[in-house]
């Protein structure tokens, strides 16, 4: 009983941290992007404002049960993904529920939120929502390939699928990081990470600049707020995952913040400096060079 | 010697019949060739039955039952050829009526007229 309570407490702490970190990170990066484009940009705490505004909006409309549950699914997906990853190596507080499943569980749990969101968007009856969904899913399957190959390479390199053990195997010196012991896997993984974050050049899914296209088209009020919350947490989860996979994880909060910040910065830089792909272009891109790199990484492990 | 001559003629006759069967365009001529073939076969049968200077196996003043064995030709082929001839006759009759029928149906006796069914 006691153990369960403590676990619940730890979980809350961990979630609280990752949420705020995600939000702040989002705000910061928005500013960075603005700077790159020569604008002043929004305040760092803008994401908080948006979420509060949306949640306290007076009127809200919904199109049906799935529409109602869509954001819930989405957020559950984000939370779950995060909760199955050990955020900080060796810390009881941030180890989350990583004991209940390994890397494969995390990889497949990412789908959970995607599916729920897609369903919700679908019931809205707005043609743009499924349009965005079809683009997003199509792109996802594409970047999953190099990512999967990278994961396989790493797993076979360390003969384990447990994230904790992967991190453990990378301890002791920067040279033990997969990034250096298995650079090809890292490259493949990081390229697919670009797709995963849906920034440029793979941002056609939610097309931020134009009239709203994509899954969130019909979302408003607290539904939208929930999505924004999830975006923060999910972003954080993905960052932590990649940090654990390729960059030796983190032994304390600070190193985690630094590493994830850098990883995110990399995506923003790429996004700021490249135009946008059409969906079919991005599919071909991911199934091209990155996949070859991933295969190379795997083949090396085979030899 | 006798046998061989008869046999040769018989075989020649049969081959002639076959030749006609395969080359004549007129149905009735084909039938005639067919009876040639038959006749050839019958000659062969008779020729097989021949025994050196033997006579017909019918007892009368000239041929006493006793010791006839040395003097007569083989009666069996004669019996068989009798049957064969009658059967050939029957077949020919039927063939002819078929030819007539084909003529009434196709208004032609050329073998080219009976090429509807093929492949």
């Amino acid at each position, binding site marked *: 009983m006691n153990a369960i309570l403590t676990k619940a407490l730890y979980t809350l702490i961990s979630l609280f941290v990752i949420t705020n970190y995600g939000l702040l990170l989002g705000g910061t990066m928005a500013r960075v992007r603005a700077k790159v484009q020569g604008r002043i940009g929004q305040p760092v705490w803008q994401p908080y404002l948006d979420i509060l505004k949306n949640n306290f909006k007076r009127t809200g409309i919904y199109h049906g049960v799935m529409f109602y549950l869509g954001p819930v699914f989405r957020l559950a997906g984000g939370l779950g993904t995060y909760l199955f990853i050990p955020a900080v190596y060796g810390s009881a507080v941030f180890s989350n529920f990583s004991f209940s499943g390994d890397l494969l569980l995390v990889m497949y749990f990412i789908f959970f939120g995607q599916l729920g969101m897609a369903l919700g968007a679908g019931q809205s009856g707005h043609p743009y929502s499924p349009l965005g969904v079809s683009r997003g899913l199509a792109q996802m399957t594409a970047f999953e390939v190099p990512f999967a190959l990278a994961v396989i390479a790493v797993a076979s390199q360390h003969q384990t699928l447990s994230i904790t053990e992967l991190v453990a195997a990378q301890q002791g010196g920067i040279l033990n990081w997969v990034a250096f012991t298995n650079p090809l896997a890292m490259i493949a993984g990081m390229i697919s990470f670009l797709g995963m974050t849906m920034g440029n050049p793979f941002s056609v899914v939610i097309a931020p600049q134009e009239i709203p296209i994509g899954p969130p088209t019909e979302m408003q009020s607290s539904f939208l707020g929930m999505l924004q919350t999830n975006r923060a947490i999910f972003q954080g989860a993905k960052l932590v995952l990649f940090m654990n996979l390729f960059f030796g994880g983190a032994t304390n909060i600070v190193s985690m913040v630094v590493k994830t910040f850098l990883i995110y910065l990399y995506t923003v830089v790429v996004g700021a400096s490249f135009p946008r792909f059409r969906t079919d272009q991005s599919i071909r891109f991911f199934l091209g060079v990155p996949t070859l790199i991933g295969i190379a990484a795997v083949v090396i492990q085979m030899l | *010697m*006798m*046998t*061989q001559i008869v*046999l*040769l003629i*018989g*075989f020649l006759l049969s*081959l002639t019949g*076959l*030749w006609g069967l*395969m*080359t004549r365009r007129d149905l009735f001529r084909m039938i005639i060739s067919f009876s040639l073939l038959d006749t050839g076969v019958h000659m062969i049968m008779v020729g*097989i039955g*021949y*025994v*050196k200077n033997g006579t*017909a*196996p*019918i*007892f*009368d003043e000239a041929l006493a*039952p006793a010791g*006839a*064995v*040395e003097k*007569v030709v*083989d*009666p*069996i082929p*004669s*019996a*068989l050829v*009798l*049957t064969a001839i*009658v*059967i050939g*006759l*029957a*077949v020919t*009759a*039927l063939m*002819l*009526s*078929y030819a*007539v*029928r084909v*003529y*009434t149906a196709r208004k032609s006796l050329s073998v080219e007229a009976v090429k509807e069914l093929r492949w």
Partner: protein
Amino acid sequence: MIKRLLIILTLTAIAFGFYPLAWGVEDARQLSPLAAGYVENSVEELGTSNVVTAIVVSYRGLDTLGEVTVLFAAAAGVTLLMTSGNPERRKKRAASRGKDGKDGKDGKDGSEGGSDKARRQGSELLAAGAAFLFPIIWLFGIYIFIHGHLTPGGGFQGGVVIASAVLLIIFADCRQELGHTVLQLAEALSGAAYVGVGLLGLWMAAGFLDPRFLAAGEFGELFSAGAIPIIYSLIGIKVGAELTGIVDSLRRCS
């Protein structure tokens, strides 16, 4: 032309194949034991002076029965082919044949076959000769088949002779009407009787078609050799009737 060449090649090939048969057989010096057995025993076994007859009618009687059947089937086939299925049309044809004129060809019964060039009627001479010869030929035919066990000839030869007489009549007058009923009766009854005789042999003598259920009689007499003369007569009647039927159904009158 290619085909012609192929035919020639094929025929030469088969001639080559036949060669050993044609040339490889010398004259026989003596009879085969089976034949010798026939020649020696036929007299006391069957009492026929014509060994061939003995073989045809008795020893290999089954062949002869089958032979009759072949002829019978052929006759039936010719009738089937030559007469259109339904009887009333046949009657119509008979009627039309009765009187003169071109209405002999009717319907699809095929009687117009060859009728485009009208055939000449038999001449007076032919008609008279036929009328005169007809009974004589018949008599001769009957003689041939009842003496089949004594002299050359037999049922088939006799039957053919009889049919030829009918043919002569038809030559003389194509529209000569034949008694179909008589023909049919003769054909059916003689055939059935033949089978019956065969069964008698099975019951009263040693086996199916065994002619010895009648006394062998005096060698060389007309009424001898058991049932052989009877069988041959039946055959003669049947063959005569069947051939007549064939001739009848094959004729095409203008």
